[in-house]
Structures are given as C-alpha cells and as structure tokens.
C-alpha cells in the first residue's frame, strides 16, 4: 500500500468513503500492518455493527478481529468482535456476568486446538494404547458437544466450530499407518465424529480449519516462535486465510449470497468466437487440453446451478449462432435449458444484465457477471456498480481457480428442507440436553480434577518466581517488580513468606502459576504481592490460594490480622475487587500506595471454591 493510500484511509470521513477507498485498492493482500491500520479506521468509522462475532479459543487468537473487520469491510460489512479471555471457553458460557454473554453475539467462533485440549495426544501419543487414544478422542468430542449445547442454551448465536488440524509430521513418522491407531487416523476419526455430531444441528457449523491450513500450507501457517512466546498458533498469513473462510459463513448467515450468475459465451463458456471460428472451430469437450479447460468451467457452473444459483447468459452474438452451438456440441455439460434467461443480442452487456435482473425480479447486488473481456467487465462495473464482476486472468486455465476462491455463492444449507431443520431444532432444543451437559460453572470447574500444589519458594524455583513478579500484569495486586536478588532475600529472610502455587488438572500440568509474598509480623501479616498467571484465571484458584493463606495465619497461625493493598494499574483490573470479594474490608490504616484492605482473625471465613485437591510440599506429583 502506498503512503498516499494509507493517508486517505486515515483521513476517510465516513464509513462509505472508507469502503470505497478499500474497494479501489488493486491488491487486497494486506500485510499485518495494513490490516492493523484498516481495522483501526473501521473501528473509528463504523458507528454500530452489522455482525457481532465472539471468538473463543485455547490459543492466542487476539489478532483475528483485526483481520475480520478489515477484510469484511471490503464487502461493506461492519464487524464488531469480542475475544474471550484465553482458555476460558467454558467459563464464558457458564458465568452470567461474562463478557461473552453480555456481548450478545450473532456468531460465536470456537477454535480449540489439540495441544492444550489434549496434552496427552500432543506429547505422549506413542505411549498411549488404542483404548486411551479413543478415550481422549471421546473426551474432545464430549467437550465440543457440551460447548455446543451451552451455546444454544445461553445464547442466540450461530456457533462455528473449527475442526482439528492434523500435525505436519506424525510422531511415528512414516510408520504411523502401522500403529494400532496412528495420528493420521486419530485426527481423521475425530474430525469425522465432529461431522456426525453436528450434521443435523442447524445452529452449529463446522469450519474446516484443517483444510483451510492445508490449502494455505501448514508449515507456512505457523510462526513457531510466536507460538512459544504468546501461544499464537496462527501467523498473520494464516489469520488472513482463516478470516476469508469465516467470512464465507458470515455472508451465508447475513444472506449476502449472490443469487444469479450471468455468463458471457465466447471465450467464457467455450474457447473461440462462434461468429468467426464457426461451431466446428470452438474448443469445448473432453480429449484435448483447451476443450477440457472449458469443459471443467461449464461443469463448475452446472454445480452452481445444483447449489441453487440461477444461471443466465449475456452475450453479444447472433442468437441463432449461439443456439446452434448448444444444439451441435453435445459434449458440453451445460445445455441452453440450464439458463433461466438468455440475452443473446447486440445490446450492451449492462443493458442485458439490467433486463435479466428485472425478469428474475432480483437486485443487481445479487448478480455476478463473468466475462473474459476486460473491456466488457469494466463497462459493467462502471454502469452497474452493484454487480460483482470478478477480475479474470488472461489465460483461461486461470478462470476456474479464480472463481473457486470467490465467496459469492456460499450458503449454510443447499436446500429449503435443510434450512427447515432450524425450526425443527429449536423445538427440540430444550429436550435435547444430554446427560453429558454441564449444569453450571461449579459443576464444570469441579470436574476438571484440579490439584493445587502449595510450595515454599527455594533456589530451585526462584527463576519462575522472579518471572511471575516481572511478567504478570493482570492478576497482580501490587505489581511490585522485584529483582532476582530481592527474591533471594525473600527466600532467605525469616520475616518473609514467599509461597508458590502449581496447578494441574485432567487436561495437563500448568506448572507454577501463582505466588503470594507475605511479610510476617508479630501479631499480623501483610500481603505484599498476590499474583496469578492469566492462564490460571477464571477457575477459583485465587480463592483456594487465599484460603490456604487464611488458614495458615489467621485460623491456625495465631495472627490476628491480615492486611493487603491493591495498587491500580492500566492492566490489573481483574484484581480490583479481589480483596473485598475475599472478605477483606477497606482499611485506611494500611500504609503504602493504593487501596488498603484488612481482614481480622475474628471475621475470617474460608470461601467456597470449586472442588480441588490441595497438596502441600513436593512440586512433582505422582510422576
């Protein structure tokens, strides 16, 4: 993008102006930076939205909204997005006050990937027997079923669920196919089960992410480094590709599907010009290269007709000549009957298209016009700006790949009957709750099999403690950035209690994700730092940690007061009401920056938190 173009985007005064600028750009293959620029100006100008999209994932998907809003702006659609907190897809459905439920999405896109959904499959595939692999598979399918069910109960949104991406290299190498159940088979079975699960579900649709990334190139879709740094599984080019796929669904959901395909004849439906080459000289049919190019194109148009798209002809020709071609050339997929309207005359194309629109009683914005001749295309583009006119390459072999990429004709259902399932489904919706369904958030969190391991900080885990002090922004009450030397002091000096917390559950081991630093005085204790990594937020861990500390000092340790502070930053909003929610009261006597809180031993209460096992001591469990 030129600097001048960037300037014009920045200066655009209205949404319409922005869309016009974007549509006039020759190349819509935007860089990450251009996407960011466009997305920001979409935000600035959109004033309301046409489509509200919520994104739930167990990997970092926070850059996706920019791509969706920038790329869908080219279709004049205003997208508003909500990204749920990392890995909190269940909590978002189960908590009444969640951002997801407040957002009231039209579409929810659920993108879960295997590395964090099933660490066993990801890391121990070759150690598992077939039964264990099947168990993992069923567990993943159950998870999606539960989420789809929750989505219906709790929202009015259409749910899009991504399927699972088969790894680029199998762990067993080429011997994968000889295993009891190899990785290729595991992923294929899993994706097959998803198809079966959602086939008759009119509110849940599968996004073939495995295929989207295959199309794009799996190795080219990831930046390994970004995965390790930010758990970002998809790089910018893959995000772009995925967005274009999602936009296909959005168009179908919003009814932006084109209804009619208007085709030129000469060099579009067959090779050659009938008026000059004669019927015998035309290239169409099987058995020779040029003929097959147009045979396949016709076959594609015929497929569109079967998908419910109306075909029409707009050609400058003698109608007798054209009719003769259809009569004589029997080796053509299309016959004249396949076209609902045939405008074969010496009228201009725009006039023919207008006539077609009026005969079919459809809007010009429902029409796609395909013509090999750039002059004709431009004429129609200028005269009828609402008609979609794909730019074709000069070489006819490029026509079909160009048209296949377009998202003009996407529908969620091919037939009325399929679409009717929606109503049917809604009637059954309430009865449909399966025994697998999750009743509420406590039910969900209690079934995670969470263990919380309480550890005293020592030399061995000092680096991790230091990292938590310096890197945690959100659930960090005071944001004290201590140096390694200071952390060492806390470990050595008697008056400090630095306790670390590790979390594991049925899904895997998160390692050390939290810490509390207390200063222990004669009669009271002061919480200096209370930190929880964002990976472990939203599941009651903070309450469990607080209970451990209350018990240690107020219930059993003989101290009569526990004080704490909350120092507000731009980023630590999640902890703003934490101390009050844990039974602390505001206490102005507590010295230091920020808001002071205190809890006396006479008032202490252990708060209810999701069921989890608390282990003291060893960092390493059974393994």
């Amino acid at each position: 993008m030129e600097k001048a173009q960037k300037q014009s985007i920045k200066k655009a005064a209205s949404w319409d102006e922005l869309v016009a600028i974007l549509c006039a750009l020759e190349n819509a293959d935007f860089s990450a930076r251009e996407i960011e620029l466009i997305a920001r100006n979409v935000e600035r100008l959109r004033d309301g939205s046409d489509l509200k999209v919520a994104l739930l994932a167990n990997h970092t998907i926070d850059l996706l909204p920019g791509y969706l809003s920038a790329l869908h702006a080219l279709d004049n659609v205003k997208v508003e997005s909500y990204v749920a907190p990392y890995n909190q897809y269940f909590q978002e459905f189960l908590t009444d006050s969640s951002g997801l439920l407040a957002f009231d999405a039209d579409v929810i896109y659920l993108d879960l990937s295997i590395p964090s959904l099933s660490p066993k499959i990801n890391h121990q595939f070759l150690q598992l027997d077939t039964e264990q692999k099947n168990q993992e598979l069923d567990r993943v399918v159950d998870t999606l079923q539960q989420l789809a069910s929750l989505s219906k109960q709790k929202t009015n949104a259409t749910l899009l669920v991504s399927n699972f991406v088969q790894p680029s290299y199998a762990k067993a190498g080429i011997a994968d196919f000889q295993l009891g159940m190899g990785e290729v088979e595991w992923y294929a079975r899993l994706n097959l089960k998803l198809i079966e699960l959602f086939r008759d579900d009119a509110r849940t649709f599968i996004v073939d992410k495995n295929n989207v990334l295959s199309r794009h190139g799996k190795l080219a879709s990831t930046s390994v480094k970004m995965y390790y740094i930010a758990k970002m599984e998809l790089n910018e080019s893959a995000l772009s590709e995925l967005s274009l796929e999602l936009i296909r669904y959005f168009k179908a959901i919003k009814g932006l599907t084109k209804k009619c395909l208007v085709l030129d004849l000469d060099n579009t439906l067959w090779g050659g010009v009938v008026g000059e080459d004669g019927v015998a000289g035309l290239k169409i049919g099987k058995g020779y290269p040029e003929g097959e190019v147009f045979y396949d194109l016709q076959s594609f148009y015929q497929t569109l007709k079967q998908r419910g798209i109306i075909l029409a002809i707009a050609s400058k020709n003698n109608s007798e000549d054209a009719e003769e071609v259809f009569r004589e050339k029997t080796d053509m997929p299309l016959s004249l009957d396949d076209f609902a309207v045939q405008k074969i005359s010496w009228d201009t194309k725009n006039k023919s298209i207008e006539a077609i629109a009026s005969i079919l009683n459809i809007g010009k914005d429902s029409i796609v016009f395909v013509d090999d001749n750039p002059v004709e295309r431009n004429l129609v583009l200028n005269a009828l700006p609402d008609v979609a006119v794909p730019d074709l390459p000069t070489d006819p072999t490029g026509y079909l790949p160009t048209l296949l990429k377009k998202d003009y004709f996407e529908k969620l259902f091919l037939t009325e009957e399929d679409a009717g399932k929606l109503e049917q489904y809604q009637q059954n919706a309430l009865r449909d709750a399966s025994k697998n369904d999750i009743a509420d958030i406590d039910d969900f969190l209690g079934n995670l099999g969470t263990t919380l391991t309480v550890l005293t900080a020592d030399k061995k885990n000092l680096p991790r403690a230091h990292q938590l002090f310096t890197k945690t922004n959100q659930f960090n009450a005071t944001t004290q950035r201590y140096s390694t030397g200071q952390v060492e002091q806390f470990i050595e000096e008697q008056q400090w209690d630095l306790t670390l917390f590790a979390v594991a559950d049925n899904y895997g081991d998160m390692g050390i994700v939290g810490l509390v630093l207390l200063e222990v005085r004669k009669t009271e204790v002061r919480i200096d730092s209370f930190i929880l990594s964002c990976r472990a937020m939203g599941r009651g861990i903070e309450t469990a940690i607080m209970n451990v500390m209350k018990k240690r000092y107020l219930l059993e340790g003989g101290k009569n007061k526990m004080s704490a502070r909350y120092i507000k930053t731009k980023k630590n909003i999640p902890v703003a009401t934490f101390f009050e929610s844990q039974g602390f009261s505001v206490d102005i006597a507590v010295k230091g920056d920020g808001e002071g809180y205190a809890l006396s031993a006479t008032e202490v209460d252990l708060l209810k938190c999701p069921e989890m096992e608390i282990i003291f001591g060893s960092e390493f469990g059974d393994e």
Partner: protein
Amino acid sequence: MDDEIKELVAEIFNIEEEDVIPALSQDTLDNWDSLNHLKLVTAVEQEFNISLTMDEIDDITNVEKLVAVINTHKS
C-alpha cells in the same frame, strides 16, 4: 531514527510520528500492552524481512532497543 521505524511504531500504537522517541517504552505508553507488543513484533519482522530471537523480542522494552535490534539484523 529511521522514518520507516517511526512510521511503523506510530501506526501500531496509534500515536503521532513526532511522539515516537527513543525513550518511549512499555512503562510510559499505556498502549504498549502484550497484544500490541505482538503486533509490533509481527509487523517489524514482516516489514524488514527479519526474524527476531525470543530474547530480542523480550528485550524490546523501548523504542531505542527496538531500533538497535532492527539495525543489528539489517547490517
């Protein structure tokens, strides 16, 4: 400072180009959160066709360091 870097940083953090000074840092700029850091790194790598190491990405806490890292890779 390279105009290209200035422009890029201004664009990512949605600030004026003249406000892009070497001392601009994660601590002084509210907009410089982890998400925008990710956007910055992605854009820098793409724009200058370089690949930063994990340590470098971690170390870019202000514009001065960013410029230094880009220059190391370009030379």
